[in-house]
């Protein structure tokens, strides 16, 4: 049984960048969210193993999603994928429970290394 994946980004292109970096077994059934509120709804209604999360988004941003996951006690491995690469932001997302920070545009090898590291492939 392969991991269930959720990709949350307001940009269509960025979502596609993640999808095409994933092994087919994961990308085929991956779910998509275009803002943080949508992502939280999905996370609360079904079991998701991996969340790829953007930070700068309308409605609820990435930090809001991380906080929401914490507050609701949801168990999911979160990888933040963002263009905001300032060290302070990277530390902030790790403190809020993200497993890793990946810079945009996301590289296929880097993404798969992280999935492998957490046994999610």
């Amino acid at each position, binding site marked *: 049984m392969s991991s269930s994946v959720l990709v949350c980004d307001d940009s269509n*292109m960025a979502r596609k960048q993640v999808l095409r970096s994933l092994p087919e077994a994961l990308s085929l059934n991956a779910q998509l969210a275009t803002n943080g509120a949508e992502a939280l709804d999905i996370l609360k209604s079904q079991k998701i193993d991996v969340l790829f999360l953007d930070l700068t988004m309308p409605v609820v941003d990435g930090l809001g999603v991380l906080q929401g996951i914490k507050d609701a006690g949801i168990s999911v491995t979160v990888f933040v994928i963002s263009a905001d690469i*300032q060290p302070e932001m990277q530390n902030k997302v790790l403190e809020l429970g993200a497993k890793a920070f990946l810079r*945009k545009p996301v590289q296929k090898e880097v993404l798969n290394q992280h999935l492998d590291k957490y046994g999610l492939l």
Partner: protein
Amino acid sequence: MSSLNLNEDQQDCLQEIINVAMGQASDQLARYLDTFVYLKVPNIEQVSAQSLSMTLNPDEQAVAVVSQGFFGFEGIRGEALLMYQPKDSDRLADLLGYEPEEQSVEEQIIDLSSILTTTFLNVFATQINNQMSYSAPRLLSSSKTTISEHIEQQAYNWDLALKVKISYQVTDYSFNCDMILLIPESAIINIKTVIDRILEEY
């Protein structure tokens, strides 16, 4: 009316390329000033030569403006304007803590502007498989007339341009500067071709 109109996918792609460039420029600014920069969603719009002065709104208050031209392959070119309010240029001297004899405030503003412009545009160019060269950055005298004249002169070179406005906000010092990129219509047509190539890969 114009060839500038980008469809939804092209707009999304351009926006994402700009976000990545903006993120790296902000990171440079954050390191330079040893602080955190708050990122806002960039504003992308089409401007006509006639309306340019109006949309830049330079007469609100005298500002310091640093101008730098950029040129890539395939006719991609444009002009970057870094605009500072007077209070922000004073702020900058405090932030950097330079001694007056080391470097003047004007030199610091030119330095910082050039770091932001070249970081942004180098990252932008890499993503569209291009490479930029730059003219020397110029500080326009902070009088209203000079800036308006410069902006009007810019607009002589084109009828329509894409205007990208990025606001860099340093939260803990309430320092702001705006980066405005003006990319003439002819260059945008080239960028559109490249964007379509990128989109085809998806």
